[in-house]
């Protein structure tokens, strides 16, 4: 008999023990290890997926933030540019206004100066003219300036044409006042009488003349009646003198400006030379 029953029983027991031992030492640990590894890998993959989704979300968020930031920045830039433009325009306007004001003031000052100079010139010229005329007249003709003036005035009275005389007469009739003779100096008796006679000759019998001394009259004589006047003075000469002086002054200013510019240029050159 090939089958030994004791061995059969022993082998059955042996095999059962082997099954138990292998289960304990081989299958369970190995399967557990595999399961643990799979679980770990699955966890890692899940973790990676979560991180990826998170990263994706964050990326989108940051992109959105960037866009918003860009927009804000652009808006701010535009605002700033606008503000700068406005500010610049305002500043330019203010500066222009200021420069214009300054120029106006300067011009005004220049004009004032010119005017006062003119006046001064006129005053001096008058005095000079009178002094010269007086001297010349007394030296050459032995007559005083006042006498000569009176003569010329009388001449002009005689030279009046008829229309002018008529006009004067009608003016005299309308006016109730006396005929006034204004002079810059004291007339002598003889001169007064001559004027009275001349007036009487031209205008007919009149009320006695009224003589008034006005120093500002610039050494002239004039007859005033109801808004009409017959006059002689050296104002005309003075006006022409003033005009010629004005021209002279203008020319001088222009020349001075040119000279100043030239000086500035030269100075600049000097500075450059010094730098070299």
């Amino acid at each position, binding site marked *: 008999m*090939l*089958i*030994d*029953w004791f061995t*059969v029983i022993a082998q059955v027991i042996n095999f059962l023990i082997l099954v138990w031992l292998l289960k304990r030492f*081989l*299958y369970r640990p190995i399967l557990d*290890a*595999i399961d643990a590894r799979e679980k*770990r890998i699955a966890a890692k993959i899940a973790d990676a997926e979560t991180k990826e989704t998170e990263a994706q979300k964050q990326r989108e968020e940051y992109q959105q933030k960037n866009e918003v930031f860009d927009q804000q920045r652009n808006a701010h830039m535009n605002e700033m540019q606008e503000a700068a433009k406005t500010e610049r325009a305002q500043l330019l306007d203010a500066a222009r206004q200021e420069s214009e004001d300054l120029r106006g003031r300067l011009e005004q000052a220049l004009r004032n100066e010119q005017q006062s100079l003119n006046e001064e010139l006129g005053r001096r010229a008058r005095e000079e003219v009178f002094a010269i005329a007086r001297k010349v007249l007394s030296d050459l003709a032995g007559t005083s300036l006042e006498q000569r003036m009176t003569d010329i005035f009388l001449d002009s009275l005689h030279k009046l044409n008829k229309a002018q005389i008529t006009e004067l007469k009608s003016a005299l009739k309308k006016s109730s006042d006396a005929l006034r003779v204004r002079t810059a100096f004291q007339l002598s008796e003889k001169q007064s009488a001559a004027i009275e006679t001349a007036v009487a000759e031209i205008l007919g019998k009149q009320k006695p003349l009224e003589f008034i001394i006005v120093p500002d009259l610039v050494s002239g004589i004039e007859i005033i009646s109801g808004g009409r006047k017959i006059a002689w003075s050296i104002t005309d000469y003075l006006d022409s003198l003033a005009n010629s002086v004005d021209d002279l002054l203008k020319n001088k200013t222009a020349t001075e400006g040119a000279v100043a510019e030239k000086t500035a240029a030269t100075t600049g050159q000097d500075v450059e030379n010094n730098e070299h």
Partner: protein
Amino acid sequence: MNLSPDNIIYWQMGFFKLNATIVYTWGLMLVLVIGSKLITRNLSTEQQRSRWQNLLEIIVTGINQQIEEVGLKNPQKYLSFLGSLFLFVAMASLFTVVPGYEPPTGSLSTTTALAICVFIAVPMFGIEQSGVGGYLRSYLQPTVIMLPFNIVSEISRTLALAVRLFGNMMSGTMILAILLTITPFIFPIIMSALGLLTGMVQAYIFSILATVYIAAATRVRSTKPEGEAENKTESESK
């Protein structure tokens, strides 16, 4: 010349005895258990792991996969029994390369013991799966007339299991012994290599047959409703 390692008796006391079959079985058990213990002592759950652990993982997952492919739904439940069958038979034939070694599977007592284990395990798993009634009803499939045939097949296949493994293992050892006496060079090596191959094939056949038997016993109940459902749909379509 011994036909079976049972006949090599080291110690005997009445009914109890210690023959080569039992001793070599113990040896194999020690190698298997201590080897597993040594390797699984430092198991790694990381991506990196030792070569031995890799080997064991391949073996265990391979067996697991085989069981699943045969059709058992929850392979881990049967892994201990079927895996141990395969590993024991495979190791028994693998150690034939060691001179002086007598494979315990070359003894009809051992193969009978393993076949008896399968013979008991099949109804146990079947009953566990579908209950006593459910399992016993499987003997009446497809008709009551088949009952004696089912019982005969149950016994005969157990016998076949035992004798097939025994015949193969014993013949391998016998051929090797005979060849050694006739042509002591080269041929024994070739036969020994062939013996290793047949040993592996036998281990696979033994365990896969056991798996098929268990699958047949446990599948009865779970397939029945599906079949009925199929019949119903067929009749409806007609």
